[in-house]
């Protein structure tokens, strides 16, 4: 009743205020405008508070100059305040502008939809018709399907909020997923965005209900996202206004729909073709910076989504981060903690599994990926007896290749199932990054000088992809891994390399353990090599950090192969690893494969041995320099310290 009264008077005032311009407000418009007006000026005053009006206008997502124009046209500038008349006219002008009409008095004579405002607050306590606080009714991000019910929706939304806070704060639940569906469909970071930011007129048509239904080119949707971009201050002001915690979010806004997921995955692919690998921090940073969200928000999004805190994003983490960005752009406030539906575990289980299964990747070796893709990586079955030794040998060959650009591409075809198994497992586990992942950083001894001196790698980087074993199924792998780690640390045993006749007999767990062991043991020499200098290939290994490192490791591992006979290798490795490996028969095929592998490994070994010696030499030199510098420093130090 109160609002209606105001509406009535407002309309009359509008008519009077504009000096004869008769604003005919429809019933719904009256209602809406009066409601908005009451929100802008809580106590029954004549004029709306400037700041709240400003916020409301900014929430309309119109560019600032349009808003200025509107302010001028509606007469607020002239009279110096936003009276009801001016306010209503302004609202009507906003509606007009949003519909693509120019900001003119004439345009408001038309039949216009209600003006749309971005969600200003995510306050589920907003009650319908509570003028006391300016909560900025949560106007849904405009959508074609929702447009008709825009005003009705807010009513419903409010009432629903009153009834059931868990429901989507913005509007009826069915609407919100569709929201998300639309938005990312053509989210178009980058070119589309920058291009669209220039257009102001055209994009607004997108938001008009009649046009929208679908079919709009990606450009239009990009416009939608561009609109938030073009008003970064709005988002900041929105952030300021939003006080409420995120706990009121229902699952809906944070649930990723199929379309969204596909979109995210495509985006992931564009950054990183290997779906099971990571997106590095800098790449992700550039990508998300394009969304034009402020850096602190992006930082917070990263914190939320990088669950294992390794500075990189797996596919699941990336999807979560992207989803958060999308949500933020649409006005949702960022939650304090990652919503359940965005947890990598959940995402992994829910949707990424099919992707992963067909992805067939070795999470470690990016270069390997191409060849591995062609293969059919079935998950962690016990490899056939014959394949295993081939596989390990071939794998090492493969790694060698990638690293040093040798041939042996054919050997890649028969990918070591064991390694596949291993990497698949790790791939599975990576996205399931646990918050409580084991902290393998040992602070007391992981200084860089440490690593350099001792040539022992800090524990963190190589195990990183495997750190996040959170699946129960991977528990044994975890244990084995750590066992191997310790075995390696205690003594650097020569790795059981390619030709391992007994290997085929090994059970699942044993195979990964061996594979793990190889890399583990190779890490120290590889680390020494890597750290000692900016040697070309070695350093090349560095940037693809983890994948390359593993390759390097296995290559270094290959180093030792010729020195020891296979049997010795086997036996020496056996004590290190779990005692397993009962000897088993081999088919002749296996033997042949093993022999080829041995030959190839020997070649690789020779090369690596040379490389190794060179690097060792460099390492020594660097050490000498370092000692010299340190002595100098010590001599200087007494002088500086008082």
């Amino acid at each position, binding site marked *: 009743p109160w609002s209606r009264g105001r509406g009535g008077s407002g309309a009359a005032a509008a008519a009077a205020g504009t000096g004869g311009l008769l604003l005919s407000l429809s019933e719904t418009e009256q209602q809406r405008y009066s409601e908005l007006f009451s929100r802008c000026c809580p106590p029954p005053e004549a004029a709306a508070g400037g700041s709240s009006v400003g916020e409301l206008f900014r929430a309309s997502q119109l560019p600032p100059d349009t808003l200025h124009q509107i302010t001028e046209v509606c007469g607020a500038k002239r009279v110096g305040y936003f009276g009801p008349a001016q306010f209503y006219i302004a609202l009507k002008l906003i509606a007009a502008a949003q519909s693509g009409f120019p900001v003119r008095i004439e345009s408001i004579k038309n039949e216009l939809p209600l003006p749309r405002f971005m969600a200003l607050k995510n306050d589920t306590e907003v009650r319908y018709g509570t003028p006391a606080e300016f909560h900025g009714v949560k106007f849904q991000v405009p959508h074609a399907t929702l447009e008709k019910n825009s005003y009705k929706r807010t009513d419903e939304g409010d009432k629903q909020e009153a009834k059931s806070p868990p429901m989507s704060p913005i509007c009826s639940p069915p609407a919100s997923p569709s929201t998300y569906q639309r938005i990312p469909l053509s989210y178009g970071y980058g070119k589309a965005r920058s291009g669209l930011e220039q257009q102001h007129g055209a994009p607004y048509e997108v938001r008009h209900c009649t046009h929208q239904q679908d079919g709009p080119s990606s450009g239009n949707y990009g416009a939608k996202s561009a609109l938030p971009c073009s008003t970064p201050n709005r988002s900041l002001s929105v952030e300021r206004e939003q006080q409420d915690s995120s706990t009121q979010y229902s699952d809906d806004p944070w649930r990723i729909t199929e379309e969204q997921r596909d979109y995210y995955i495509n985006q992931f692919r564009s950054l990183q073709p290997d779906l099971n690998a990571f997106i590095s921090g800098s790449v992700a940073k550039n990508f998300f910076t394009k969304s034009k969200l402020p850096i602190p928000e992006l930082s917070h999004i990263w914190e939320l989504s990088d669950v294992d805190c390794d500075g990189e994003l797996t596919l699941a983490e990336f999807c979560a981060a992207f989803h958060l960005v999308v949500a933020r752009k649409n006005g949702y406030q960022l939650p304090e903690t990652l919503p359940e539906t965005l947890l990598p575990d959940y995402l992994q289980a829910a949707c990424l599994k099919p992707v992963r299964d067909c992805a067939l990747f070795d999470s470690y070796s990016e270069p390997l990926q191409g060849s591995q893709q062609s293969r059919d990586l079935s998950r962690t079955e016990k490899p056939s007896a014959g394949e295993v030794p081939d596989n390990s040998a071939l794998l090492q060959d493969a790694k060698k290749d990638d690293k040093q650009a040798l041939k042996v591409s054919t050997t890649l075809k028969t990918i070591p199932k064991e390694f596949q198994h291993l990497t698949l497992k790790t791939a599975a586990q990576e996205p399931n990054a646990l918050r409580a992942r084991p902290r393998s950083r040992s*602070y007391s001894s992981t200084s860089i000088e440490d690593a350099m001196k001792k040539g022992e790698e800090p524990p963190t980087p190589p195990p990183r992809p495997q750190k996040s074993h959170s699946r129960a199924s991977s528990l044994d792998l975890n244990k084995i891994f750590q066992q191997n780690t310790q075995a390696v640390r205690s003594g650097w045993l020569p790795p059981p390399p390619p030709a391992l006749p007994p290997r085929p007999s090994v059970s699942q767990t044993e195979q990964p353990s061996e594979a793990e062991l190889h890399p583990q043991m190779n890490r120290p020499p590889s680390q020494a090599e890597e750290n000692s200098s900016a040697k070309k290939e070695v350093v090349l290994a560095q940037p693809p950090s983890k994948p390359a490192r593993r390759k390097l490791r296995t290559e270094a591992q290959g180093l030792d192969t010729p020195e020891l006979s296979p049997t010795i290798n086997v036996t020496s490795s056996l004590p290190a690893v779990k005692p397993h490996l009962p000897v088993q028969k081999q088919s002749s095929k296996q033997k042949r494969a093993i022999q080829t592998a041995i030959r190839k490994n020997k070649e690789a070994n020779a090369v690596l041995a040379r490389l190794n010696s060179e690097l060792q030499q460099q390492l020594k030199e660097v050490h000498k320099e370092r000692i010299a510098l340190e002595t100098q420093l010590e001599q200087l130090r007494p002088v500086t310290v008082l």
Partner: protein
Amino acid sequence: MAVCIAVIAKENYPLYIRSVPTENELKFHYTVHTSLDVVDEKISAMGKALVDQRELYLGLLYPTEDYKVYGYVTNSKVKFVMVVDSSNTALRDNEIRSMFRKLHNSYTDIMCNPFYNPGDRIHSRAFDTMVNSMMMQVC
């Protein structure tokens, strides 16, 4: 339970400083600042030996009648300083060490965030939460 926790950058400016009784903040700021001298002293005292042999945990820097100050320095010369109420006698060295370890872990997590530029002030909410959990609960 700490009364004040500070993260000091290598160049000895604060990256993060938070104290519990907010009215006495200035006093804690000053305390932390003066404790930096002690930290440097400890670092240089061990400086004869090679850096990597240095313990990260510096232990009690200096006690006053009201509180004790503990220090911890990372390998990149980022210092954590913790001021603890003296009346809290139950707080043992181990606990202090574990608190520093948690701090260090959280700090490393922040570093992993590509949007964080080393040398900026720390605004991470996760870090705040962790620090809050370590601070003295003021009734």
